């Protein structure tokens, strides 16, 4: 579903934010992308969802090139950034309708999905209020619902659990499992290694823009915890 081939992104002369990154996320995978702050996780994610331009490498979503066929890619992808800046002047329901309109979702379908997810995240009573009145967690919930509203084939999340309360974290994990069972590919970055360990079937570790380890959870950890594996891999690369 997602194939990143030799993707590189240079910001300043000589300095590469992402260096020859290659990985594959299949349908039904929950792929964890882990690394230090500034390792290149968000740079890679932003390129995948078509927010960040890039010149080196290739990113394919459902067989389409992000560079050459961005519309085809975006139609099947949903993205939730780490700190969602939403349209503060819209109410929650107006924002969700806006996204539903963009994805051409019928009135019945959107009602059904908004109701389902808003109830799950216990945010329905606040949907009539302006987003500017929401807490960080509530904005995060609206961003998640907007990502789920069109039933994406690929869900890309940047630090999705930051700011969520324990109940919402649980609900999101359940939704991720459910989507994975239905064949959706999920690619997400996180610092919370425990969550990644329990949730993901595949993991990649990125350091200074380079993938230093990648594979299934079993291949990578070999019976150790993900935390131990991460620290060991990180130390070996110094």
């Amino acid at each position, binding site marked *: 579903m997602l194939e990143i081939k030799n993707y590189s992104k240079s910001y300043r*002369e000589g300095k590469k934010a992402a260096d020859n990154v290659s990985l594959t996320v299949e349908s039904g995978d929950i792929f964890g992308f882990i690394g230090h702050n500034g390792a290149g996780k968000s740079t890679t994610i932003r390129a995948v969802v078509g927010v960040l331009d890039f010149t080196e490498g290739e990113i394919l979503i459902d067989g389409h090139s992000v560079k050459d066929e961005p519309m085809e890619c975006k139609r099947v992808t949903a993205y939730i950034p780490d700190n969602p800046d939403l349209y503060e002047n819209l109410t929650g329901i*107006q924002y969700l309708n806006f996204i539903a309109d963009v994805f051409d979702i019928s*009135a019945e379908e959107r009602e059904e999905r908004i109701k389902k997810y808003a109830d799950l995240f216990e945010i329905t009573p606040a949907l009539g209020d302006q987003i500017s009145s929401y807490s960080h967690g509530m904005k995060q919930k609206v961003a998640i619902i907007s990502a789920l509203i069109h039933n994406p084939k690929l869900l890309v999340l940047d630090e999705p659990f930051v700011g969520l309360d324990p109940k919402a974290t649980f609900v999101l994990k359940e939704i991720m499992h459910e989507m994975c069972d239905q064949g959706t590919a999920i690619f997400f970055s996180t610092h919370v290694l425990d969550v990644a360990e329990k949730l993901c079937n595949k993991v990649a570790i990125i350091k200074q823009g380079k993938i230093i380890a990648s594979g299934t959870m079993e291949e990578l950890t070999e019976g150790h915890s993900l935390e131990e594996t991460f620290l060991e891999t990180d130390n070996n690369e110094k």
Partner: protein
Amino acid sequence: MKNNILLLKTLLLSTSLVNTYKHCDDKKKKRKIVWSFIGMFIIYAMILGYSLAATLGYGAIGLTQAIPMICVLTISALAFFFTFFKTNGYLFNFKEYDMLMSLPFEAKTVAGCKFLYMYIKSLPWYLSITIAMMIGYEIFAFAPVYVLIEWLILSLLVPIIPMLIASFFGFLIARASVGFKKNNIIQTLFTFMFIIFCFSFRYILEAMFRNGNVEETLEASYEAIENAANTYLPAKWFAGAIVDGSISDALLLVGVTVLLFSVVFHIVGRSYRQINSALKSHSASKSYKMTSQKKHSVVTAIAYKEFKRMTGSTTYITNVAIGELLAVILSVVTLIFGFDSIVKVTTQNAPFDSAVLQPAIPFIIYFLVGMMASTTCSPSLEGKQYWILQSLPIRKEQIYQGKMLFNMYLTVPFMCLGVLCLCFSAKVPVINTVLYLILGSVLCAFSTAWGCACGIKHMRLDWENEVEVIKQGPAVALYMLPNMFVVMGLVVGVVFLGMRINHALLALIFIAIASLLTAVSYMRAMALAKKT
């Protein structure tokens, strides 16, 4: 004092293009900065040239001694209005409020520094006027060098008093709106009411003078200026210091400016926290129940989003919708008092047939409605939310088509209302009225497309305060200035041509020209959209 300087320095540094240039490795961005400096200098030079030409005119007709007063009155009027339109965005409800107020700064320090920041940012505009007028004055008055130095020093203070008055009115409006649940809407309403009052103030004053039988006095230009200067004392003090060499007048100007600054920010500081807290908090009923939803096209959805963006910001709506408001006022006033009476008042009873103005009706309304297009600043206003539209499966052209559709929704109804009211009042034939409606709508389309091309070309997403892209961005300057000057010229040109060519034919010619310009601007906007 140390805190004030530190904060002011930081505020200036955070939005300084020089600073960005120094610390940026991106050559494209650096080139853009250089070009924006060149653009700004060209505009300063244009203002300087225009002011110098006007001053030479005053000197030539024997108004040399009135030049200092005219200078202060011009700068004061400009400073008052420009400050009033942006004071809300600068002083209140700004993005970094929480961060600044969590630091050991007094509320009045934060408010005062924000004001001074606003003052320093607009000072080059006022200086280009005052320097030009000083040169013009010197050519006729042969004033000694020390007078010119005094002129320059006092010029630095001249915009402060009107800016303080405008800020204080802005503060009063913000303070009054705090008590309401929907304080944003109330603040916008109060602001519009105040603007209407200011625009009608000139006519109220005129009526007062007429009642006092001083019309004869007003007819003499010099005495009229002196009259105004006697009403607005800083102009009198400035003129006293320059023309009569009065040290006490100079000291009075300095003293009152400093005193007024201290008093205003002492008062503002006392309720600053309360106002900002109220403006930053939003009413939340938390009582929404899922109801049936409607489906819209992508472009309509974007247009609706733009509508909510505009109505959610007092700064945005007061700057973008002021032309529409003035168009409504003009329409209603024309219907009540008649087209002829309005023409007489506007032209100070100049002896000519008001029928010759008929072909200019669509351009007069366009001057107001097209004063500012929302498409000019809306691309930049995406700011940090740029990721939303960029990550969605929308063609880039569609994003801007949605923005353009909103501007059409905003302008066309007001254009039609204005044209219909003026045509009805001026007894314009039906066929001509229809043609003027078409011409007006095409002009709205041109304003929309041209504004969009300017907005995309000079899109700036890394702003700290929305005022930077609503009032001060290069996109706005590039749209507004040529648009205003060309329309003013067109009004005169159309009246002139209307005396020689059939009005309906003239309207058809302008429909064709405006359609062509709209098509070119639209294609340019779409080409630029693809590159974003």
